[in-house]
């Protein structure tokens, strides 16, 4: 009885044989439709910030450098590879590549930066305004906050700099308030 069970267990192993893949020595491509690293097609991107607004991991940032240049920064390190940005891009400028061999010893390697050339608005002389006056307004642009320095003032990394006053209103940090005043 005991032996019979053990033989059965051995039989499972033997029937399966050695199944180990020789992966790093033989390529093992991801299947079609795999959600690997997203790739921006810079020729298509219009800089609408839709991906940045809806990224669950908030890992895509846009920032105006000047009137004409807007920079899109994407940090693959924190990316959840959900493909939400692909769904939302109106120009289909983003695709999920099948690239998964992303391991690196330097986090820099995982970033993508796109300089976007923005046309100047005839009326105001600027393109769509990304500079936001304060936190409350920014909240309306959801998920769009990594590049806001004021907000980052209160991202604390369990440092000892925390003072209760930080919760108070200061010149740089306005407490969020009810929207409907």
């Amino acid at each position: 009885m005991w032996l019979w069970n053990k033989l059965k267990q051995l039989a499972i192993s033997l029937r399966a044989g050695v199944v180990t893949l020789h992966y790093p020595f033989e390529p093992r491509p991801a299947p079609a439709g795999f959600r690997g690293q997203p790739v921006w097609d810079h020729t298509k991107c219009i800089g609408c910030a839709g991906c940045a607004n809806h990224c669950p991991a908030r890992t895509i940032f846009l920032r105006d450098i000047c009137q004409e240049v807007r920079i899109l920064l994407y940090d693959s390190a924190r990316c959840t590879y959900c493909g939400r940005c692909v769904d939302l891009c109106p120009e289909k400028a983003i695709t999920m590549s099948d690239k998964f061999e992303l391991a690196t010893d330097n986090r820099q390697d995982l970033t993508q930066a796109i300089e976007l050339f923005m046309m100047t608005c005839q009326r105001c002389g600027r393109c769509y305004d990304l500079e936001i006056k304060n936190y409350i307004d920014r909240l309306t642009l959801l998920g769009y906050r990594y590049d806001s320095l004021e907000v980052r003032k209160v991202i604390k990394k369990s440092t000892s700099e925390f003072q209760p006053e930080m919760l108070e209103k200061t010149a740089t940090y306005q407490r969020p308030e009810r929207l409907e005043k």
Partner: protein
Amino acid sequence: MWEKLVKRAFRRSIWVYHCNSGACNGCDIEILNVLTPYYDVERFGIRLVSSPRHADAMLLSGAVTRPTLPLVKKAYQAIPAPKLVFAIGSCAIGGGCWYDTYNVTGGGDKAIPVNYFIPGCPPRPEAIIYGIALALGLVDKKVAPVELKQMEFPVDMYRQTKLWEQRNVIYKLLGEEDDRYNLY
């Protein structure tokens, strides 16, 4: 006497210690998965050990939550040198999608020096093996920073310093001088 041999043996016999600092299980399961028949990292001499004292590398998964931050440091301290740290998954690399919430400190490198980053949410077992193979020197790195431009634009006029190379251009240009908030 055999220091050189010993040094060469190190990369051929990495024993890993799995440290979950608040992960969702996804990466942990994939870490276990690389031990299973299809992937079997033991062929590289890798073993999962249960005491950090026996470990050569720490596989860190999870976003390093506030309670685990000191514990991760402690676990790192418990590993004898020379030691490697692999941050596995987006959470361990940068805190993932909750990198800035009130109970997450945001990434393994906030707590301990990380040697290798293996992104993915969770990374495929192949990706983990790739990362390990990278550490073992079996494969070459395949990623590099991507910089794309829609058109050649005289950016130089905005490059007052070499800030762009340092990838802090956005903040530096805005007058943010504080290194504490450096992303990288």
